[in-house]
C-alpha cells in the first residue's frame, strides 16, 4: 500500500492527466471487447467465453494485413471484417447448436474453440511472440497537456473506440436493424413469427460483437505483444466489466470499462499489488448488492 504516493499524484496535474488518460486507454480497449460480450449476451442470451480468442485473432489478422499492405487503417478494418465473418461462422456452425441448452454446454463449446484457436495460432504464426510496431503514421512525439504526457496513438485509440461505441449505440437504438435486434433479445420466436429471419439477425449480432473484438485486437496490435493465449487475461477483465456494467447493457459496459481503467491506472500508484484483487472485489460487491449490474435489468430466466 502506498496511499501517500496516490495523494502526491492526485496533487499534481501532470500526474492526474497522465494517469487519467492511461486509465482511458486501458478502459476503452476493454470497452470494445466487453461491448461485444454484452451485446451477444443481451441478444442471444449466451456468454461467449471465446471472445478473447476473437480478440487475439483480430490482432494477428491485423499483423498479417499490415505486413501485406503496409497500411494500418486498411489492416485494422480488414481485421475487424475478417473476425466479424469468422464470428458469423462460429455462430452458425457451433454456437447456434447449443442455444437453449444450459450455459455449461455453451461454455464447453467456447472452451474447445479457445483451445483450437490458440493452437492454430501457434501453428500458423509460430509460438514466438510477434509485435506489429507503431505504424508510421503514429510515430510522433508524445503530446503534452498540463504537464501530462499522452502519445498520439493512444488519442487515436480512445477516439476510435469511443466512435465505434457511439456508432454501435446508434445502430442498436435508432435503426430498424437495432429495433429488430432489441425485439429479438426479448422474444426471438415472436420476431420470427412476424416473418423476420431472426437467425440472420442472431448471426449478424454475433458477427458485430466479434468484429468489435477484432477491432480491439487491431487497435491493440501496435502496442501489445502478440502471443498464443493473449486473449486469456483480457477475457477475464472484459467479464468483470460486463458484470459490473450489467449483462446486456452497452452503456453499462462503457461506464464499467472506465471504472476498471481508472482502478488500474490509479491503483498501480496507490495499491499496486492489490489492483487485480480490487477489480474482483468491485465485481463481488456489485454482484452482492446489485446482481444485475450497475445498468443492467434483472435477468429473469
Amino acid at each position, binding site marked *: 500500500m502506498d496511499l501517500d504516493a496516490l495523494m502526491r499524484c492526485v496533487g499534481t496535474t501532470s500526474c492526474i492527466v497522465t494517469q487519467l488518460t492511461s486509465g482511458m486507454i486501458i478502459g476503452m480497449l476493454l470497452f470494445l471487447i466487453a461491448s461485444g460480450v454484452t451485446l451477444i449476451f443481451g441478444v442471444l442470451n449466451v*456468454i461467449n467465453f471465446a471472445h478473447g480468442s476473437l480478440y487475439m485473432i483480430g490482432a494477428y489478422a491485423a499483423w498479417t494485413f499490415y505486413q501485406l499492405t503496409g497500411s494500418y487503417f486498411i489492416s485494422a478494418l480488414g481485421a475487424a471484417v475478417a473476425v466479424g465473418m469468422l464470428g458469423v461462422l462460429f455462430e452458425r456452425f457451433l454456437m447456434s447448436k447449443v442455444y437453449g441448452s444450459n450455459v455449461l454446454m455453451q461454455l464447453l463449446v467456447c472452451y474447445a474453440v479457445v483451445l483450437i484457436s490458440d*493452437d492454430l495460432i501457434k*501453428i500458423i504464426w509460430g509460438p514466438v511472440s510477434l509485435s506489429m510496431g507503431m505504424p508510421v503514421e503514429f510515430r510522433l512525439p508524445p503530446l503534452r497537456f498540463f504537464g501530462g504526457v499522452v502519445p498520439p496513438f493512444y488519442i487515436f485509440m480512445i477516439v476510435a473506440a469511443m466512435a465505434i461505441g457511439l456508432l454501435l449505440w446508434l445502430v442498436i437504438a435508432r435503426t430498424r436493424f437495432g429495433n429488430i435486434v432489441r425485439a429479438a433479445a426479448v422474444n426471438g420466436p415472436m420476431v420470427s413469427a412476424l416473418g423476420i429471419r431472426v437467425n440472420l439477425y442472431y448471426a449478424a449480432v454475433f458477427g458485430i460483437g466479434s468484429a468489435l473484438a477484432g477491432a480491439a485486437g487491431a487497435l491493440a496490435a501496435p502496442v501489445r505483444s502478440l502471443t498464443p493465449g493473449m486473449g486469456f487475461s483480457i477475457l*477475464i477483465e472484459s467479464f468483470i466489466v460486463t458484470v459490473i456494467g450489467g449483462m446486456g447493457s452497452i452503456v453499462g459496459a462503457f461506464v464499467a470499462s472506465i471504472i476498471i481503467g481508472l482502478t488500474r491506472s490509479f491503483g498501480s500508484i496507490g495499491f499496486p499489488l492489490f489492483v*487485480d484483487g480490487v477489480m474482483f472485489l468491485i465485481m*463481488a460487491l456489485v454482484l452482492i448488492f446489485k446482481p444485475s449490474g450497475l445498468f443492467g435489468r434483472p435477468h429473469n430466466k
Partner: protein
Amino acid sequence: MTGRWRDLALAGAGLVILLLVPLFGAPPAIRDFIMFGMAYGLLAMSLNLLIGYSGLVSFGHAMFFASGAYAFGLAMQSGKFSIPAAFALAIVFTAVLALIVGAICVRLNEIYFAFLTLAFQMLFYNVILGWVSFTGGDQGLMGGIPRPKFLGIDLADRTQLYVFCSVAFIICIAILRQLVTSPFGYTLRLIRDNQERAAFLGVNVPLVKLTCFVISACVAGVGGILLTLFVSGAYPNFGFWTTSGEAIFMILLGGSNVFLGPLVGTVILRLLNDITVTYTSHTELVLGIVILILVLGLRKGPLDLIAERLENRRQAAAQAVRDAADAGAADTRKGGS
C-alpha cells in the same frame, strides 16, 4: 438389502478393486494415473453435487480444492501437526471458508451465482499469489510436503500412499452417495427443479443450499489434499479459474445426471490429456476437436446419454401400452357419437 446398505457394499467393493490394482503388480504409472484421477475426481464429483443435484452452477469450485491443498500443505510444513490432524485442519479451514463465501453467494441465482463464485475464487487466488512469505506465491509450497509416519502408516511409501488415497476417496464418494439418496438429496433436487415450490413446501432454501455448498467444498478440499500428497506441493493454479473450468468439463464429459458421471468424465479428460500429450505436441488442438465432437455429436455426457436411452426405451414401452388403451377408447367414442 436396503439401498443404503447396498451402496455401502458397493463402495466396499470399489475399494477392494482399487486396492487390488497394486497387488496385481500394476505398474506405478497406472497407480499414478488413478491417484491423480482420484484427486480430480473428487473435485468433479463434489462440484456435481452443486451443478447436477442442486442446480448451483459454480465457476469457483477450485477455490476449495486449493484451500484444502494449501491448508494441509502449510500445516505439514509447519511441522506441528501429524497427518490426520493436518487433514482435519484443512477440512475445517475449507468448511469455514465455504461457509463465509457460501453465505454470500447462495442468495444469488444462476449466472450471478456463477460469477460471484468466480470473483471469490479469483480473490482467493490473488491472495495466494500475493502473500509470498506465507504461500510461496507463484512458486507454490516449495521443498516438498513432509510425511511423518502416523499409526504405523508411512505415506512416503508410494503403495501406502495409494492405499491411503483410495480409502479417503471411497469414503468421500460413499458420503456423497449417501447424501444424494437421502431426504436431503431429494430436497436438493426439489430446489434445482423448482425453487419457489420448494420454498412453498417449507424448505429453508438458502440454508439447504449453504449446507450443500459447504459439504461440497469439503469434499473438493479432500481432493486438494490428495493432490498435494501426490505431487508433494501445492500451487496457485489449483485455485485458478481454469481448474474450475476443467472440473466442469469433467462433469459434462461424463454426465451430470448419473451419480458416477463426473468420475467417468475425469477419467476421459485425463486420458485425453495423457494420450494427446504422449503422441502430439498439439494437445490443445486435439483436445478442442474431441470436445467439439463430444458436445455437438452427443450433446450430453456419455453416461447421461446411456441413462436417457434406457429411460426412453422404458417410456416408449409404457407409451405403447397406453396407445393401445387409447385406441380402444377412441373406438368406443366414435361409436357413441
